[in-house]
């Protein structure tokens, strides 16, 4: 059937393009399509110009920013300006690990607080108390590492997500780590996972993001502005690398004291605290309160210390990869932004 053959040919062309995008380290075509729809030619051309100006890299994908687009009758024709970006050399993603930047300042954000208890158990244990306790223990452990640690809150107070972001940006942190405790619909699971900024198709993650973003303090317009700037730089790649390193180190260390924890891996989610921060930012779900056994453990200082030590292990791998064999392995395994 010729119609079906044409569909197949087009699908294979798109599939090959998608694979080539991966090989070249460019944004997936689906994402580019969405960005074009949102941002239009101007932002695309501007992004290309900025990235090229910053990196000086030469590649072969600039044409995509200026590739002929299909325009509907109601859509105004684009001005002639995109021709400029067509003439520019291609933007290529920068591999942040090439710079070997040091982590000198770490902001730890204990999730929730004050009137926002976060998840709760039937016994009255509150997420806000555990995150603060673990954050304090982690700060104490990090005293032997040459890094300045700042906590977004040191007591039981309400703090909007916007304020948390402001604190991290004001101290010019190199890394932002938000600590949370999972609560899952299936109570027999003890899932730990780490998020960095990105979209999600998983309804459970979308629900989680909606809950975590509630009361952020940002207006919709602010949020859109923040989102539009996210993919231009290297921050997302760096966040992913940190998330992978932390999750691997944390899981491995925690498994030694609790073999029931499940590694739910590294995921992307559109979380406000990850959008507004200007440095690489990750959010770690370090335990799971909906599991009765885990909730009982969380009530003990010894287990909270174990969580802090496991986080410390993960953070050491980020901060001092050279001195940690595991860290080196993780760095080697981390995806590189440049093909």
């Amino acid at each position, binding site marked *: 059937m010729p119609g*079906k053959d044409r*569909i*197949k*040919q*087009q*699908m*294979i*062309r*798109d*599939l*090959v393009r*998608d*694979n*080539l995008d*991966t*090989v070249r*380290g460019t944004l*997936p075509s*689906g*994402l580019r*399509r969405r960005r074009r729809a949102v941002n239009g030619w101007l932002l695309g051309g501007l992004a290309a110009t900025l990235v090229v100006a910053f990196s000086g890299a030469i590649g072969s994908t600039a044409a995509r920013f200026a590739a002929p687009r299909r325009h509907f009758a109601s859509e105004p024709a684009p001005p002639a300006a995109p021709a400029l970006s067509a003439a520019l050399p291609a933007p290529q993603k920068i591999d942040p690990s090439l710079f070997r930047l040091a982590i000198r300042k770490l902001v730890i954000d204990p999730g929730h607080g004050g009137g926002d208890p976060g998840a709760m158990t039937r016994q009255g244990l509150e997420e806000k108390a555990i995150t603060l306790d673990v954050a304090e223990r982690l700060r104490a452990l990090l005293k032997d590492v040459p890094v300045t640690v700042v906590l977004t809150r040191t007591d039981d107070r309400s703090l909007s997500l916007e304020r948390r972001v402001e604190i991290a940006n004001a101290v010019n942190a190199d890394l932002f780590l938000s600590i949370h405790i999972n609560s899952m619909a*299936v109570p*027999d*699971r003890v899932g730990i996972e780490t998020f960095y900024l990105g*979209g999600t*198709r*998983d*309804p*459970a993650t979308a629900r989680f993001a909606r809950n975590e973003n509630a009361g952020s303090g940002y207006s919709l317009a602010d949020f859109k502005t923040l989102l539009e700037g996210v993919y231009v730089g290297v921050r997302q790649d760096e966040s992913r690398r940190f998330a*992978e390193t932390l*999750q*691997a180190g944390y*899981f*491995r260390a925690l498994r030694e004291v609790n073999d029931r924890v*499940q*590694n*739910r*891996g*590294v*995921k*992307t989610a559109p979380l406000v605290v990850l959008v507004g921060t200007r440095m690489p930012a990750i959010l770690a779900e370090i335990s799971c309160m909906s599991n009765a056994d885990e909730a009982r453990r969380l009530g003990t200082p010894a287990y909270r210390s174990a969580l802090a030590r496991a986080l410390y292990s993960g953070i050491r791998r980020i901060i001092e990869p050279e001195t940690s064999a595991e860290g080196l*392995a*993780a760095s*080697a*395994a*981390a*995806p*590189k932004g440049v093909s």
Partner: protein
Amino acid sequence: MTKSKNEVLQVGIDLGTSRSAISSSSGARHVVDSYVGWPVDMVARKVVKKAVLFGKEALDNRPMLDLHRPLERGLIKEGSQKDEEAVRELLGHLISLASAKEGQKVFAVVGVPAEALRVSKQHLRNAVSGLADSLMIVSEPFAVAYGMDSLLHTMIIDIGAGTTDFCVMNGRYPTDEDQRTLTNAGDSVDEHLATLLRNKMPDGRFSIYMVREWKEKGSFVGEPKQPVVVKVPVHGKPTELDITAEMRRACESLLGPISETMLDLVSRVEPEYQDDVRNNIILAGGGSQIPGLAEALEKTLGEMGGGRVRAVEDPVFAGSNGGLAIALDAPDTDWESLAG
């Protein structure tokens, strides 16, 4: 110019969390449990007599091995170097089973869980580069749809071990908006069942591998055709245990999330095509074989005007056959652009 049949061996590979399969243009088809194990020391190496073991052989010798099941929950587990290496070894092993002739190029299409493709695409690419002369990575549900020629107004629900992947085929290469992934899948059923059984019989000793085997033999949704009875060691004595109720509960834990996502995706299809999609829902992956599941999902669709859900006929090779179909249809110029 098309390369002659003898110059190139095209292969389609389904790299699954639980099982991996390969279909090749030479007609060879193989399936391997997705386990890779390395002997832990020289003694183990002498006993197993191999540098690396795969599938059931690896599982059977697991006390002597550093055993990896590299795609946990549809992702390369932990993003660790060892798991990347395990993916690489597993793919290398599958390709070797296809027995390419001397000098023959290998063009491979590797289908992976959609979540793996979305989150760790570059990881995967790194892990598998160099194993074939040219390589394409595709999402598994897309490969299934392509292999079945179900490219229009169809929904594929690929119930694997690590993830359940949904893909609505609209006559174009699926984008993120057309796909969904749930972690409610075979492994979550195993974990659920294990928990229920631990509660039922605290003195029973069993491993997750035993639970997995019980599920594969006795899973069902709805009314049981026969009781599910297993033998569990209690204080060292094999004891018969009726686990019918627990099996049903664990398997039916998939129903809610899958139904919810299926209905949501149908509701997002263009209104004039929703009937078509509802009547073209295809279950793939190992989970598609759970007796009663297709009927239960059809019952859910009844609330939205009815529909038809069917399982693929060959769940083991549906993905790899689809990959092979893509490999055979892709022009040489495309393969050349992806070579190296």
